């Protein structure tokens, strides 16, 4: 059992929180988080990580077809609520932000379900996420990165055609002379190691949790 103890007042059980998130047991999770907030800042960070671990399990249960798309959306909402609840306590703990990150669905593609789930998880992980939405042109992405001094770019796609837009976006960073100053991660149905190499992106992911882990590695 992994307990976080704050002055011996309240014990929180992070495994229980992970399980509650994984089971999408909203009532129990909110109850646990309320106890965490009372237990103090240190517990809040442990609880947030426990929620993230639970969300990762939700992703796995989705892959095995135990969970459905509506469950995944629900999990995203729960994670957003959890992060919002824990935010004040986390701020008190002086938890460092992982910095800014730009994400969007690339030009010619309007699918945003997967992207939105990743946005939620990146936010929960501590990133200051700039979400440009869907069907976003390369020049908009580059300009946003310049204006906000952003070092990490996330490009989402579902359509095979969108691979061309990924290529165009990477090329736009090259043309702007910024390619060596940003890390680009691509995600979604059509991406693969081959696509990643061909387009010149830095990394790729199908699983939201993998994507978050990669971004976190870059940020630190």
């Amino acid at each position, binding site marked *: 059992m992994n307990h976080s103890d704050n002055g011996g007042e309240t014990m929180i059980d992070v495994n229980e929180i992970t399980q509650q998130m994984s089971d*999408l047991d909203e009532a129990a999770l909110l109850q646990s988080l309320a106890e965490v907030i009372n237990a103090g800042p240190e517990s809040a960070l442990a609880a947030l990580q426990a929620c993230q671990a639970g969300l990762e399990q939700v992703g796995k249960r989705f892959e095995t077809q*135990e*969970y*459905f798309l*509506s*469950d995944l*959306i*629900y999990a995203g*909402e729960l994670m957003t609520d959890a992060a919002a609840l824990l935010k004040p306590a986390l701020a008190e703990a002086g938890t460092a932000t992982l910095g800014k990150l730009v994400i969007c669905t690339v030009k010619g593609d309007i699918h945003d379900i997967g992207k939105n789930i990743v946005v939620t998880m990146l936010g929960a992980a501590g990133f200051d996420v700039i979400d440009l939405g869907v069907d976003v042109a390369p020049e908009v992405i580059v300009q946003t990165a310049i204006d906000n001094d952003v070092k990490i770019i996330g490009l989402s796609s579902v359509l095979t055609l969108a691979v061309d837009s990924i290529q165009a976006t990477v090329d736009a960073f090259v043309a702007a002379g910024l390619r060596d100053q940003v890390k680009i991660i691509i995600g979604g149905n059509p991406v693969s190691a081959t696509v990643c190499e061909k387009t010149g992106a830095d990394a790729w992911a199908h699983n939201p949790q993998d994507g978050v882990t990669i971004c976190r590695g870059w940020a630190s």
Partner: protein
Amino acid sequence: MIIIGEKINGTIPSTGVAIASRDSAFIADLAVRQSEAGADFIDVCASTAPEVEVEALKWLIDIVQSVTDVPISIDSPNPHAIKAVFTDIEKPGLINSVSLEADKTEVLFPLIADTEWQVVALLCDNNGIPQTSEQRLEIARQTIDCAVGYGIAPSRLHIDPLVISLSTDQTSMTKFIHCCQEIKSWYPEIHITSGLSNISFGLPLRKSINQSFLVLAMGAGMDSAIMDPLDRDMLATLLGTDALLENDRYCRKYTTAYRQGKIGKSKN
């Protein structure tokens, strides 16, 4: 959606035999399985000869209460039989039913006036089931006024507009929809219920008609049903329709029922 599980009813041949032979295991099994399937009330109807009905009801009530916490829907055409077993029922449930026939409201409304009991009210009177929806709505008005007079709030009423079989009345469904919408416009918090299967009497493929009825009736505001929760197809239709009507956040009840094997292909 409120599900009133109909399986413990002496008019169903196998249940009738179980009641006559006092086969308590059979009754207990029906109570447990309906509870597990998600019934909000377990209907208990003896359908025996009048002189032995009270005894049969008491026997049924004892069994149901010993195996499930789901409240009982006490079902008899005789209000005095309901009154006679009322105190045997441990927690507030549902009276099934009153109407403006004879002394039903006078016997049963005072009984539940200061309780949390709910009650099914059929839209018929001493002249039977009215032909037009206007006449039924008039009965609904009188019934609701009468209930409110006893301090029974509309939210405790399940109005059953009564369904004539489609085979004998082509306007049966449209009348039902009209009644639903009108009554809900008076009191949004009132429940509308129905015994689903009457609609398909005399037609082939009754299940298909019953499912279509359920969907259309729920669309018109019906939020309670006297049905068999062990009918997987019917339950799937009900849960799917409830999700479509925005009554199931993130489709949780629908997907959970599927995961638990209550709907979809049987895993047994």
